[in-house]
Every structure is written in structure tokens, then in C-alpha cells.
């Protein structure tokens, strides 16, 4: 009997909002608004539209290859081949998520430290929380499965309420007298779209739940678009609130602008409120990252794209090696960015660059499939022919080229990204050639990529000695 689909449009919107909103978004929001004032809202709108175009691309790719657990990895494997797949997945996805969660951990530790003022290093809070989540994940217990929606509503609701209070000047704190606009130069606004980009990434995580969504053809893309629009509106209101209660310079320099704003707006109660909501959001994010990325590594190991030890499970059926490695990697990035708003901002921009590259690859995958399979049935198709994907590629490439207004920082980001992709490129070449034993630069037929979803695909090849 066919299982009834349970999720509607409202669920898709709440999932996409919950997956996108994170405390690091507030750092980018503070940095952007602190640099150019309320005109940052224009940069946000442009970044939101570019992300909507990318979500449309993801929706069409999902329509072509439905019910895939690997998502972008499988689209790229079928579209462009294993070499860009390995690089974009390991670099543009795994590494980026670990990096961003490490930054989230750092912001969390700073916020708790600023609230409690205990005589211990802030990193201690990150360590304690990470160890707790490591233990629960190793036991196979998803502590936050039931409250993840609640956390998302709390986060977005708190942002909206605090934004409205601030925008209307109804806070208990002192209103700051400062110009609303720090820069209205079009070139500057456009260059800030790279900072704004971070506010909207991640909505594609909705795609894996699409098989459980009623009228998925309509509700999945519509839910993602509405979710992004909602985030844009809420964060725009927050910027208006920042203008009234937080000096722009303090905002740009703060490692936790949401706390600063909460304190300035409503005093200690506001600070505590934002701290608690942000803490819950961070814990939920880290929990999702640990078990999500460990599962992705396990899936890639089954496709023979990562070492076999990632597929090993413990008695609780948890890919424990992946859980350990992800947790340690998050701690490394958290330690590296501890208490430093400059390092936090830098790592966010590096993470953005990795993610943007994977989005460009998604658009290219779409164009390849339009050419290669023009008549394959698609329950959703990006309107306007190839115009929107091309705009997506050009717009995202522009954001990478303008990732920072500081030339030294820009070259440092490009350098970090370039070196990472070079290392991944070498790993990918040798892994594909000698371990996977398939042509490095040739695409894998779509039906074969889909067949990899079946465990028997791997078992048979392992037994025959084709895959070691």
C-alpha cells in the first residue's frame, strides 16, 4: 500500500527556513549592515533572487533524478563526471558545512561567555556541547528531531519581533542617532551581495524530503521560494531595527551582533532572549551537521567515492568514524575562529565561496541535462529556457569575484579556496583512477548513478573485486 504523503506547503516553508537560518547569518547581517547601512537590504534582495534561481535549478535537477540521497553529488556525477563531483562535494559541501558549523560553535561560545562571565576560556562551552552531541550521536539518538521545527519558529519569530520593536523605536534602550545610509554607491551595494549570500544558502536541504510532500511538483519549489522571501523580509526588518539601536561600527566589529542588538534594544532580558534562542539554534545546527554529514560520507563511501571506513557502523547502526571525524573537524574550526570576529567573518566568506562554486556546478549540471535529455519528463522545469541558469552562473561568479571589498582579504579567500581545491583535485584524480577505476572526466550515465542507490550495486562490485 502506498504510504500517504504527510507534508504540505507550510511544512516545506518551515523546513527551508529552519535549515537556512543560523547565528552565522546574523554575523553576516551585522557585518553587511554595519558597513553600508540600510542599503544593505538591496544587496540582500539581489542575493535572495540569485538563491531563488539556484533553488529553481535544484528543483529541476531533483525532478530529473528524484529520490536520491546524495543530491548534488549524484546530479554532478551524472552531469559532469566523478572529478568535479568529488571536488564539489568534499570541498563545496562537506568542508564548507564543517567550517560553517565550526564558526557557529565559535559564535555560540562567545555568546555564552559574554552572558555568564565565568573565568574559563569560551572554547570550553563549545567543547562541552560538542562532547554531549558526540555521545548522543554515537548512541543513535537524535535529540533534536522533535524540536527542530520549534527551534526554527523560535529563531525566526524572535528575529521578527525584535526587528519590529527596533524598527518602530519601541525598545527600552537608547535610540542611536546615526544616518540610515552609509553608502548608496551602486558598485558598493553590488559588492556586498557576496556577504548577503550567506543569509540565504542551504534551502536545497529541503530536496531530500520532497518524496514525503503532497503535490511536490508545486509545493517544493514554491515552499523554498516563499521560505527565502520570508527570511529576506525578516532580516530586512532586523536591519531597520539595527539602525535605531546599534551603532553601525559596533555592529560590523561584533562577533555576536544579535546579542549586542538584544542588549541595546531591551537590556539584559533582550540579551538573554537572543542568547537562548541562538544557543538552541546552534545546538540544533551542530546536531544536524554531525549526523547529516556522517550519513553523506557513509553514502559516498558506498558509492566508492570516499574511504571505506566511513561506511563502518557501530552496534547502534551509526557511521561512528564519520561522526568522530566531523566532530573533531568542527572543534578545529571553532578553536581557529574563537572570539575573533575577523576570523569568523573570513571563514564565513571562505565557506560562502565553496558553496557558491557548488551552486555554479548545479547550474552547469542543469544546462548539460537540458542538452543531453531535452525530452525527459520533468515535473518541474525552470521557466525562461536557459536564461535563469545563465544568470545564476554569472551572478554567482560575480559574487565570488567580489567576495570582499578588502583586496588583501579577497586574495586570501581565493588563495585558501584554490589551495583546498588543488589538494582535493589531486586526491580526486588518484582516487577515481585507481580506486573507483572509472574514467576520471567522463560522466556516468544517469540510470547507473540512480542504480547506485541500491545497496546491491556496491555489494556485487565488491564481491567481484571491481571495487575494493
Amino acid at each position, binding site marked *: 500500500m*502506498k504510504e500517504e504523503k504527510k507534508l504540505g506547503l507550510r511544512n516545506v516553508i518551515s523546513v527551508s527556513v529552519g535549515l537556512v537560518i543560523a547565528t552565522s547569518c546574523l554575523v553576516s547581517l551585522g557585518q553587511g549592515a554595519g558597513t553600508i547601512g540600510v542599503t544593505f537590504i538591496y544587496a540582500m534582495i539581489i542575493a535572495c533572487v540569485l538563491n531563488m534561481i539556484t533553488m529553481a535549478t535544484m528543483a529541476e535537477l531533483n525532478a530529473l533524478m528524484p529520490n536520491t540521497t546524495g543530491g548534488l553529488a549524484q546530479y554532478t556525477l551524472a552531469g559532469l563526471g566523478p572529478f568535479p563531483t568529488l571536488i564539489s562535494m568534499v570541498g563545496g559541501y562537506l568542508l564548507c558545512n564543517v567550517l560553517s558549523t565550526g564558526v557557529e560553535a565559535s559564535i555560540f561560545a562567545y555568546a555564552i561567555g559574554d552572558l555568564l562571565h565565568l573565568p574559563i576560556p569560551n572554547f570550553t562551552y563549545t567543547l562541552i556541547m560538542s562532547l554531549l552531541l558526540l555521545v548522543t550521536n554515537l548512541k543513535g539518538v537524535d535529540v533534536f528531531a522533535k524540536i527542530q521545527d520549534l527551534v526554527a519558529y523560535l529563531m525566526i519569530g524572535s528575529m521578527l519581533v525584535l526587528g519590529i520593536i527596533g524598527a518602530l523605536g519601541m525598545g527600552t534602550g537608547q535610540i542611536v542617532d546615526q544616518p540610515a545610509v552609509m553608502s548608496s554607491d551602486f558598485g558598493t551595494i553590488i559588492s556586498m551581495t557576496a556577504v548577503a549570500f550567506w543569509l540565504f544558502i542551504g534551502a536545497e536541504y529541503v530536496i531530500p524530503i520532497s518524496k514525503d510532500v503532497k503535490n511536490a511538483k508545486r509545493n517544493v519549489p514554491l515552499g523554498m521560494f516563499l521560505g527565502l522571501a520570508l527570511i529576506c523580509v525578516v532580516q530586512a526588518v532586523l536591519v531597520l531595527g539595527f539602525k535605531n539601536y546599534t551603532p553601525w561600527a559596533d555592529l560590523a566589529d561584533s562577533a555576536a551582533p544579535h546579542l549586542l542588538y538584544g542588549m541595546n534594544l531591551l537590556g539584559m532580558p533582550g540579551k538573554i532572549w537572543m542568547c537562548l534562542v541562538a544557543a538552541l539554534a546552534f545546538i540544533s545546527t551542530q546536531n544536524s551537521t554531525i549526523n547529516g554529514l556522517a550519513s553523506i560520507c557513509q553514502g559516498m563511501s558506498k558509492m566508492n567515492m570516499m574511504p571505506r571506513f566511513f561506511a563502518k557502523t557501530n552496534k547502534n547502526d551509526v557511521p561512528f568514524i564519520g561522526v568522530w571525524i566531523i566532530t573533531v573537524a568542527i572543534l578545529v574550526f571553532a578553536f581557529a575562529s574563537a572570539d575573533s570576529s575577523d576570523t569568523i567573518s573570513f571563514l564565513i566568506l571562505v565557506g560562502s565561496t565553496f558553496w557558491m562554486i557548488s551552486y555554479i556546478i548545479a547550474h552547469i549540471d542543469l544546462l548539460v541535462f537540458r542538452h543531453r535529455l531535452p525530452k525527459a519528463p520533468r515535473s518541474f522545469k525552470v521557466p525562461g529556457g536557459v536564461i535563469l541558469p545563465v544568470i545564476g552562473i554569472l551572478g554567482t561568479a560575480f559574487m565570488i569575484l567580489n567576495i570582499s571589498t578588502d583586496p588583501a582579504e579577497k586574495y586570501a579567500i581565493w588563495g585558501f579556496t584554490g589551495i583546498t581545491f588543488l589538494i582535493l583535485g589531486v586526491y580526486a584524480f588518484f582516487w577515481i583512477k585507481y580506486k573507483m577505476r572509472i574514467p576520471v572526466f567522463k560522466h556516468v550515465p544517469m540510470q547507473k548513478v*540512480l*542504480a547506485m542507490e541500491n545497496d*546491491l*550495486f556496491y555489494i556485487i562490485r565488491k564481491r567481484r573485486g*571491481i571495487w575494493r
Partner: protein
Amino acid sequence: MSISKIEVITDMSRFSSLKAALSKAGVGGMTVLQVLGCGVEKGTREYEVDNACEMELLPKEQINLIVETEQVPEILEIIKQELYTGHIGDGKIFVYRIDNAIRVRTGDEGVSAL
């Protein structure tokens, strides 16, 4: 007005969802047969390494629909959207012209007989 026959051969697991989609689209009737068959892969499962040398016939459902020729493109689109997964085994659709159709009880012919 002319009439056409649409013959769909697909995996047995897809039949119930296809029937529901066609009912929702207003298709008035169908004939279903359980058949054995294979395509160019000769019955090779998607996860296997080598293609089968000899044809292996797999159990399938054949669904026959008789509709007005004007409705054929719309119904084909519904069938394609419903059956598509991208996996080997999604199925095949054949379209035939029908010279005539007759309802025995009333003697109606052509579209009136549908």
C-alpha cells in the same frame, strides 16, 4: 473525431499510482494485463555488472486505454510524469490509431462508444 489506443508497459509496482493519476485526469476506462517482457537491457537489473546474454522476461503490467486522439498528448504527459523515476524499468508507451470502436449494448460507434 478519431480515436487512439495508448498501450503502457510498466513495472507492477507503478500500476496503482498510475491508475489513480489517470482516474483523476478523467480517463473513463482501461484494460490491464499481466505480461512478461524485457527491453534492450534483456531483463538485466540496474545494479548488475554485466548485461544478460539471453533475454530474461520480467513480470510487467500492460495497461490499454482507448481515448479520443485529441486527448492523447495530455494523457501521455500524465503517464510520463507519473511513471518517470529515471531508473531502468520506467516503461514504454505505444500509441496506435483505432479504425473504429463499437459498444455492443447500444450499437454506438466511434467516440460515442467510449
